[in-house]
């Protein structure tokens, strides 16, 4: 009998969804960072382009117009989606790069992945079980108080009734834990292959945004570098060199970022979660390592895409 109890306890411990809470939380955090990397990438691509436009306007001393889109709020009107920017009067109206048009579709795919990661976190959230246990304790207490009135008619009722509540609470809690674990196991196994498809696609998306930013930054830096020469006084030379160095710094950060590696580590972290859920006793160490790798890469990628090249101040142009 004693041996059976230990076996039951061992199964309950091994099949607890809460043993994965820490790693699942880290996994979910990594997915959020991946999403933030997209947001930063799209936003900073617009900033990079604005900086490039400003440089072009300053060099040509052009008359400037305000894009028509600035006059209307962003709405279903297609033209309202165009950038609200200054541009050379008489020149081409500012438009979106093709990659910027993928934002809505990207947001939709990211939302599905984020919801999935958050559901993993919800089903492994141990504080829900703590709250459940607290409610059972509260119920047991109030039943105990009520049962005291029955003691006269049924001696011992105030002792037995709360014990029954506690046992029932334990049984229900254990069953709910098992439901959570079963749904976790079914979900991660069903998502094993789809997560790879989504991760690879989003990895290509991040590469695409990174490449668009690198192209704009390369051309901006090239134009900044072209201004440098002996005709500038010391202060102007130093100032413009600093600006070129700042832009090349952002460009280099994007070069060093690793979207395919991050996407790959997302898939591997999920694979490790599947293995750990299927056999918690053997694969936990792999899970910790894979999730750690993914979190680190997602954070590094987000940092690279968050760096921006701000438009320069007028006082720094043309050595003035």
């Amino acid at each position, binding site marked *: 009998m004693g041996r059976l109890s230990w076996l039951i306890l061992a199964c309950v411990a091994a099949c607890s969804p809460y043993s994965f809470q820490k790693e699942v939380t880290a996994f979910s955090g990594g997915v959020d960072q991946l999403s933030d990397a997209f947001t930063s990438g799209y936003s900073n691509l617009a900033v990079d382009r604005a900086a490039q436009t400003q440089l072009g306007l300053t060099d040509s001393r052009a008359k400037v117009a305000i894009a028509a889109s600035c006059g209307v709020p962003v709405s279903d009107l297609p033209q309202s989606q165009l950038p609200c920017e200054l541009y050379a009067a008489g020149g081409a109206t500012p438009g979106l790069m093709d990659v910027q048009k993928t934002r809505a579709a990207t947001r939709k795919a990211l939302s599905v992945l984020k919801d*999935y990661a958050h*559901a993993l976190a919800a089903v492994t959230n141990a504080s*829900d079980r703590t709250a*459940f246990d607290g*409610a059972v304790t509260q*119920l047991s207490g109030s039943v105990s108080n009520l049962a005291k009135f029955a003691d006269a008619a049924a001696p011992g009722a105030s002792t037995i009734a709360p014990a029954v509540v506690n046992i029932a609470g334990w049984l229900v809690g254990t069953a709910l834990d098992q439901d959570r674990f079963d749904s976790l196991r079914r979900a991660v196994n*069903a998502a094993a292959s789809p997560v790879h498809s989504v991760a690879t696609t989003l990895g290509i998306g991040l590469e695409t945004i990174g*490449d*668009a930013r690198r192209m704009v930054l390369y051309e901006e830096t090239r134009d900044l570098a072209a201004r440098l020469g002996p005709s500038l006084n010391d202060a102007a030379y130093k100032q413009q060199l600093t600006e070129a160095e700042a832009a090349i710094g952002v460009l280099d950060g994007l070069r060093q970022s690793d979207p395919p590696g991050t996407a790959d580590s997302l898939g591997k972290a999920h694979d490790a979660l599947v293995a750990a859920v299927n056999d918690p006793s053997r694969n936990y160490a792999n899970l910790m390592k894979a999730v750690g790798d993914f979190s680190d890469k997602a954070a590094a990628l987000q940092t690279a895409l968050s760096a921006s090249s701000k438009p320069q101040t007028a006082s720094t142009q043309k050595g003035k």
Partner: protein
Amino acid sequence: MATIDDINAQKKAAVATLDQKIYDGIAQKNAGGLAAGQADQLDHGIHELMVQRQAVYLQAYIGALTSAEMTKALGALSAATTEMNTAAAQMTTATSFITNVAALGSAAGKVATALKGSAG
């Protein structure tokens, strides 16, 4: 029909070729000794190669994003999400129910105590 992995592999190969050409172009410009106008021509060529590279990335991304495989994958993730959220909600619903019953029991206890006091 190409899988997302196929699309990714094709993109990788095309980008590797373009990367080499872009590198060579910039290196050639930096080496100097160019006749008048040649540097501008090289800049233009490098720009065109970068535009092509962006087009390759974009084509791969849109191809993967709109593929049947991606649609199916997102559907599977949504279904898994729904199942887990339902399981997670059962415990919070049970907790809420028990809390309400306990509060009701507590109120009933106070009423019983009060009634017992008035009867005494």
